[in-house]
Structure formats: C-alpha cells, structure tokens
C-alpha cells in the first residue's frame, strides 16, 4: 500500500488525525508538567520531570511515524526535528533549557495548526 492509497482510506485518515491530536494534547500537558517541576525543585519533581520529557519525546516520535506513513512531509520533518532536539534531555534526564522549551512549544503550536488544516 502506498501513501496515496492510504490517503484514500478515509477511516484510517480520520484515525491518523485523531491520534495526532491525542499525542499533541499529551505533549502539551507534558510540557506544562516540566515547567511545574522546575518550580517545585525536589527529587520527586525531578522524577516527574524526566517522565514528562519522555512523554514529550514519545508524542513527537509517534506523530512523526504516522506522518511518514501518510506522506505528510511538513509534519514529519517538524516532529523529527523536535524529537531529535529532545533526545539528549531524554537520555541524560536533564531538564529542558529555556531555548528548548521555546522550540518545543512552537513546534507543538505549528503541528496543531498543520493537523487542523489536514
């Protein structure tokens, strides 16, 4: 099955949009959690922060994989960039820098717009 054939499968395409929205929502919520953890400053907050960064990474990873299947190049490229940018933070358990937080926030906003325009 090729990408154009999959686009013709309306039910599958609807599911793709639905799942992308879910991952974007989960990503937004995880980003918010990392901001709250920074303010809390405790071991428990650090652990929550590491989990939230993993959730963020997973959101972009899944959106990228789905977009690739449907040949949605802009969504694919943007998710890939965000996923790649997050990888060091996932592996080292580091909190998000201000610059990375901004990049992720902007990426989520753009992906939300792109998804709604599908």
């Amino acid at each position, binding site marked *: *099955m*090729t*990408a154009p054939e*999959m686009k013709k*499968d309306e039910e*599958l395409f609807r*599911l*793709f949009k639905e*799942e992308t929205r879910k991952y974007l929502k989960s990503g937004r919520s995880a980003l918010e959690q990392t901001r709250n953890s920074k303010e809390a400053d405790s071991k428990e907050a650090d652990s929550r922060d590491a989990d939230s960064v993993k959730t963020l990474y*997973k959101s972009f*990873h*899944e959106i*990228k*994989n*789905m977009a*690739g*299947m449907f*040949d949605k190049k802009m969504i694919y490229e943007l998710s*890939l960039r965000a*996923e*790649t940018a997050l*990888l060091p933070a996932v*592996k080292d358990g580091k909190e998000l820098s201000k610059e990375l937080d901004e990049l992720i926030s902007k990426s989520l906003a753009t992906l939300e717009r792109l998804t709604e325009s599908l």
Partner: protein
Amino acid sequence: MKKILKPVNILVVDDNPVILKVMRNTLEVLSFPVGEIYEAPDGAEGIRIAEEKDIDVVLLDVNMPDMDGEEMFVRLKQSEKTKDVAVIVISGETDPDKLNSLAKKGLKVIEKPFSVETIEKAIIEEAGKNG
C-alpha cells in the same frame, strides 16, 4: 530468494493504533499467503499471544511504554515456546545507541515509513530461515 508456500501467521506489536491498522492493510496485500494476523498494543500482550498461538513472524515496534521492543525480543528468545519465532523490528527509532543495541542482538530492522516491498522481502527472508 525463498518462496513461501505455507500461510505465514504474523503477530504485529505496536502501541499506536494507526500503525497497527497500516500494518494490517500492508500484510493483506502481500504476494505470498498470509494466515492469521494478530495484533498486540504492548509487549506483555505480545508475549501472551506469541506463547498461545502458532506464530511464524513477529513484527515488533521498539518505542513502547512498560516493555519496549528490545525487552520483548529478549523475553521471546528466553522462552522455550517462542525462541524460534522470527522477529523483525519495525521502527522509527532515531537514537543511534538504541539502533546499535538492536544491531548487536542481530535483529533485522525496518525503518518507518516502510513500503509493502520492504516488508514482503524481510518476511520472506526471516520466515525462510525457519524453513
């Protein structure tokens, strides 16, 4: 390349419902006979199905919560019931350390997005190893 005559029973393990559906659509148009197609949304369910059913090939995602694909692969190989099942990793993994670790285990890795031809070739090669 070997020819497959007996229907191949395939288990797909992926926590993303869209990918599961795309995989099923792909498997339904392969040029050789596909028997049963089973789906599991996580590693634990995947192991349960692999142990209960007569599975020839597992198509396995890597990045899954609770038990990732690499851990599921190790568990499959540790079990007498499933140690001979062919496993193909289907992944959008970009972490070079993770990809190296999969390669060291001798796993066949197919990148997402994949084509029908790539999946077909990999299944023929891997299923063919077990006769």
